[in-house]
Structure formats: structure tokens, C-alpha cells
């Protein structure tokens, strides 16, 4: 295809991506260097029956005029990055000096909002991803051995947790595990603890969110593995059987190696998607015990305490750096593959 033709075909799509994906990444960085204006103060003489004195008041007109003129705020450099709500450099240092041992240090670090969100995001990403692979693989093996007539309906039901809106899916589970909902009440009865509440305990909230994550994403892994299972060459399996391989050995040495590219594909998609975990935290109202990077950005923008563009921008830049770290191995691999093909 000629370069010129290619250009015209790709142009609309490229313009959309540059305007609404590439530019925002730049604009987020610029925003993160600024901070909201403080209120403009003025000194006024207020005179009462007991004489006059000087008072400091907020100059409303000047404040709003300043905001109008410079909507970005005032330049702050990397100040937002290092403050308590983000990388918290000074807090980390003082916590390091004050803490007698590691556990005190970690509990202090955990109280800083950014590290708290980072801890949950990473835990969620790296626990949910392998569990999704595992559960998806077993469901695929199970469904593959069902009679043909049952496969269609089973796949239909299996797709539901993935297809449903994440916020809605988490709400549905949230209502069931409510202490008055069916699962919550059953658990109370089973454990004989009428005060048991899955929402009150941070540990249980984390577990709940992770279970939701696996429930939501397992169908994706299942479908991909199931399609992969259809392409396992039956000759190889038969040869392995003739050589006396057991069921386990056949799965381990014939089926699994065949599925390795799929495992890489699912892990890549899952790492990207789980790293931006956000809706379940809103759905489960879990913000008291678990916050994610995406959630703290949302909270800065629409949390109801006002919008903090600088703060949201700084967290966004740090999140984008995190995504980059996750993606680098994949990009290097694809790059090498491509260059090898080209040679």
C-alpha cells in the first residue's frame, strides 16, 4: 500500500487517538506540575463600637479572578509528587528513622494514601491474574469433556460474569454478601457469629474484591483456553497414550505446552485490566479498607470534596509509569520477534 493512501485511511483513527489518548497523557503531566491557587487575602480595617483593628479577609473577587486567568493554578514543580498524598518523601524518611522494626515501618507506610492504593492495586493484580488463569484452565478442561449438547448452554452461563457491567456485577455480589443478604446471612449462620460482617473487616474486604475479580475475569481465560483445547493435535495425545502417559502426564506434557502462547496472551490482557481496578471498589463501597490507584484519581476528580487537578495529574503520571513498567517486557519481546521475522 502506498504511503499516501495508508495515511488517508489511518488518518481519522489516528487523529482520534492523538487527540484523546496521546494529548491527555501530556496534559496530565503539565497539570501535575501545578497546584490550586490559595485564596487571595487582603487586610481590611474593621471598625466596631470598640475601636478599629486590622483583619485578614479572603478577597473573593480577586480569588475568582485569579482562577479565571490561570485555571491551571500556580506552578509547583515536582512538589505535588513528593507531598504526603503521593510519594511522601519526608514521611518515608521520618518513618524510617522512627521505626524500630520492619513491621512498624510498613504499617506507617501503609497509612500514606498513595502507598495504600499501590499495595492494594499490586496485590489485586498479582493474585487475581494467576487465579484467573488457573480457574479458567480447569473450567475449560471440564467443559471440554461435557457432552456436546450441554456445551452451548454452559458457555452461555459462563460468559455472564464477564459480559455484565463491572459496577453492576459487583453490586449484585455486594447485595448478596450484605449481612442481610443470602450469602452474608448464611455465613453468619454457618460460623455461628451474628455480628460477622464482610464489609467491616479490611482483610475480608480484600478477599471479597479478589473473589469478585476472579469471578469477573475467569470466563475470559476459560473461553480462550477452551478454543485452544480444540486445536490440540489428537495424534500427539494418542501417541502419548500409546507410550503409557497417564491423564495427568498428558495434560502436563502435551496440552499445557500447546497452550503456552495463550497463557502469555491472557496474562498480558489481565495484567493491563487488573492494574486499573476501579469499579468494584465503588460497587462494594470498599474505599475505607481498600483503595486503588484509579480510585484515588477518581476521588480527586469527582470525590465531592472539590476537584484537585494537580493531585489527580500526579497520581495519573505515576500510574502511567507503573503501566509502562508492566508493559516493557512484553514490548521488548514483541520487538525482538518482529525484528527476527524481518531478517
Amino acid at each position: 500500500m502506498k504511503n499516501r493512501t495508508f495515511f488517508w485511511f489511518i488518518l481519522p483513527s489516528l487523529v482520534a487517538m492523538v487527540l484523546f489518548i496521546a494529548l491527555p497523557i501530556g496534559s496530565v503531566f503539565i497539570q501535575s506540575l501545578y497546584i490550586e491557587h490559595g485564596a487571595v487575602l487582603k487586610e481590611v480595617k474593621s471598625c466596631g463600637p470598640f475601636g478599629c483593628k486590622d483583619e485578614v479577609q479572603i478577597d473573593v473577587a480577586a480569588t475568582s479572578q485569579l482562577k479565571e486567568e490561570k485555571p491551571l493554578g500556580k506552578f509547583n514543580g515536582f512538589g505535588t509528587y513528593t507531598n504526603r498524598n503521593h510519594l511522601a518523601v519526608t514521611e518515608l524518611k521520618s518513618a524510617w528513622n522512627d521505626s524500630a522494626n520492619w513491621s512498624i515501618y510498613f504499617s506507617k507506610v501503609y497509612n500514606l494514601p498513595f502507598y495504600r492504593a499501590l499495595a492494594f492495586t499490586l496485590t489485586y493484580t498479582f493474585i487475581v491474574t494467576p487465579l484467573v488463569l488457573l480457574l479458567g484452565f480447569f473450567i475449560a478442561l471440564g467443559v471440554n469433556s461435557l457432552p456436546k449438547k450441554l456445551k452451548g448452554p454452559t458457555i452461555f452461563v459462563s460468559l455472564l460474569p464477564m459480559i455484565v457491567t463491572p459496577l453492576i456485577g459487583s453490586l449484585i455480589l455486594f447485595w448478596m454478601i450484605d449481612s442481610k443478604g443470602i450469602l452474608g446471612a448464611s455465613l453468619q449462620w454457618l460460623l455461628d457469629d451474628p455480628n460477622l460482617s464482610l464489609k467491616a473487616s479490611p482483610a475480608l474486604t480484600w478477599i471479597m474484591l479478589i473473589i469478585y475479580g476472579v469471578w469477573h475475569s475467569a470466563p475470559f481465560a476459560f473461553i480462550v483456553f477452551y478454543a485452544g483445547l480444540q486445536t490440540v493435535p489428537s495424534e500427539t495425545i494418542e501417541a502419548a497414550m500409546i507410550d503409557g502417559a497417564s491423564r495427568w502426564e498428558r495434560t502436563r506434557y502435551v496440552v499445557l505446552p500447546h497452550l503456552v502462547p495463550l497463557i502469555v496472551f491472557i496474562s498480558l490482557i489481565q495484567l493491563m485490566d487488573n492494574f486499573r481496578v476501579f469499579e468494584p471498589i465503588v460497587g462494594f463501597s470498599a474505599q475505607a479498607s481498600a483503595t486503588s490507584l484509579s480510585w484515588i484519581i477518581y476521588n480527586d476528580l469527582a470525590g465531592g470534596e472539590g476537584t484537585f487537578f494537580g493531585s489527580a495529574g500526579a497520581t495519573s503520571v505515576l500510574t502511567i509509569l507503573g503501566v509502562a513498567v508492566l508493559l516493557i517486557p512484553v514490548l521488548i519481546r514483541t520487538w525482538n520477534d518482529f525484528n527476527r521475522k524481518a531478517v
Partner: protein
Amino acid sequence: MSELIHRRSKSFTALIWVFVLFWIMLAGFPFLWTMWGSFKVQGDFFSKADWAYAINGLRTQIETGSSFTGDGYHGAWITKSFWQAALNTMIVVVSVVIISLTLGTLGGYALARSGKKYAFYLLMLALVFRAMPHITLVSGYLLPFFEWNLWGHLPTAIIVMVAINQPFTLWMLHSFFLNIPKDLDESAMVDGCTRFQAFRRVIVPVMWPGVITTGLFSFLLAYNDFTVTATLLNNSNQTMVPKIASFLGTTQVEGNVMFAVAAVVSATAPLFILVMFFQRQIVSGLTAGAVKG
């Protein structure tokens, strides 16, 4: 030989059945339960005394005189004007799907036929863009949109979602176009068509299976979105998902959780129908990217 493969011990078969049955319960039961419960009153769906109330609807019978009630639906759709949100969702979703597919087919076709190095770089760039958390992009839009008075309008949300959707659409359509033989459009060009004519006359008639599958995924992205719609739309033109989220803040105070339950069930119903009719396309779409690379 195939008989040998399918021969299994009875206990192992039983184990597989139990496991698959367990998964089906896990995947399907929450929806069934919530749908059933949406026709009850709050005292039954959230029953402290006995969860069997939720099944036989004892309180529902006492409060409304019948075992099923549409009060939740009436409250959500009419009192809280959920119909407006549903209408907005329809406008947004249809526009996003049509625009994404138009841009995506052109771009995907070009990427599949180019063979140049920069086409590969563009695909890699699209992969990087696909990985960006949506909220980080949204935090870049908000301030300029406020300044230019673009915030709070449906078209803004539509264009933003089209753009966020592009990397995925491009990848998927690119892999579908790779499957359409090159000879097809090249022979048309030998016969004197320009590239665009070849695309329009030869490729467009045969591309529909791929486009429909990609369209389904664009539909899901737009329909399920919370991040963009919750931050870029104001209260008066919300779509369904942020509307449901706003129910949670207001209805719990009024003791009308059932509005939210009814709204959730209403918003899930179209997805059920979608899966029912397009199961094969969804499955093939999910695997298209994986199997080909």
C-alpha cells in the same frame, strides 16, 4: 482410538461434573437470585430473619397483597426517571459503535495491507494506548473540557469513548482483514480501481462477520463504561451505569435499595439477550486475538 481417549473412570467423570456444576452455580446464580429478588420488597430481599422470605415473598405478600411486586421497577423507571438514563445510554452506545467501526475499518484495513515497518509501530503504540487506565486519560480531559465548555454533553462523552475504543478496534479489525485474501482487492486494483474503490466495492461486502464481532465489543465497552460517563456527564444527562451509582448515594437514605436492584436488573437484561443471540461471535472475537498472535 477416539474411544480410548473418551474412556474415563466413573469417579473422575463425576468429579468433572461436580466441578462444572459448581462453576455454573457460581456464574449464574447471582443473576437469577437478583432477578427474582427485584420483584420483592426490601424486607424480603434483605431479610434479617430468614432468607427463605426472599423466595416465597412473605413480606411482599403482607405489604402489597401479592407475592410479586413491580414497585422497584416503577420507582426506578418512573419516579427516579431511569428511562431517561436508558435513552441516553442508547444514544451513546449506538453512536459509539457506528463511529468506532467507521474509523476502525478504514484504519484496520490500512494496517493489515501496509506491510511497512511503521504499520507495526502504530500497532505497538495502539497496544500501549490500550493499557492506559481510562481514569488517567479522563483526568487529562477534565480541565480543558471545563475551560472550553465541552463538559457535560453527550457528544463529548461519545467522542472520548470512540477514541479510547480505537486501539482495541484497530487490533481486532486488523486481524480480521489479515484473513481476507490480499488477491481480492489487488485484482480489483489491477482492473483499474483505486485503493478506496477496491475497499468499498470488494472488501466491504465480505467484511461484515468481522465488523459485527468487533461491533459487539465496542457495544460492550460503551454500555459498560463507568469511568468516562461518570466523570464527563452531568446529572441531567447521565447514562444508566452512573445513574445506578448515584442511586446508591440517595436511595439507601430513603430505604429504597429496591430501586437500585430493579435498575440493575433492567440494565443487565439487554446484555443477556446480546449473549443469547451473539454467543458465537463473542467467543470467536475473544479468541481471534489469542489464536493469531
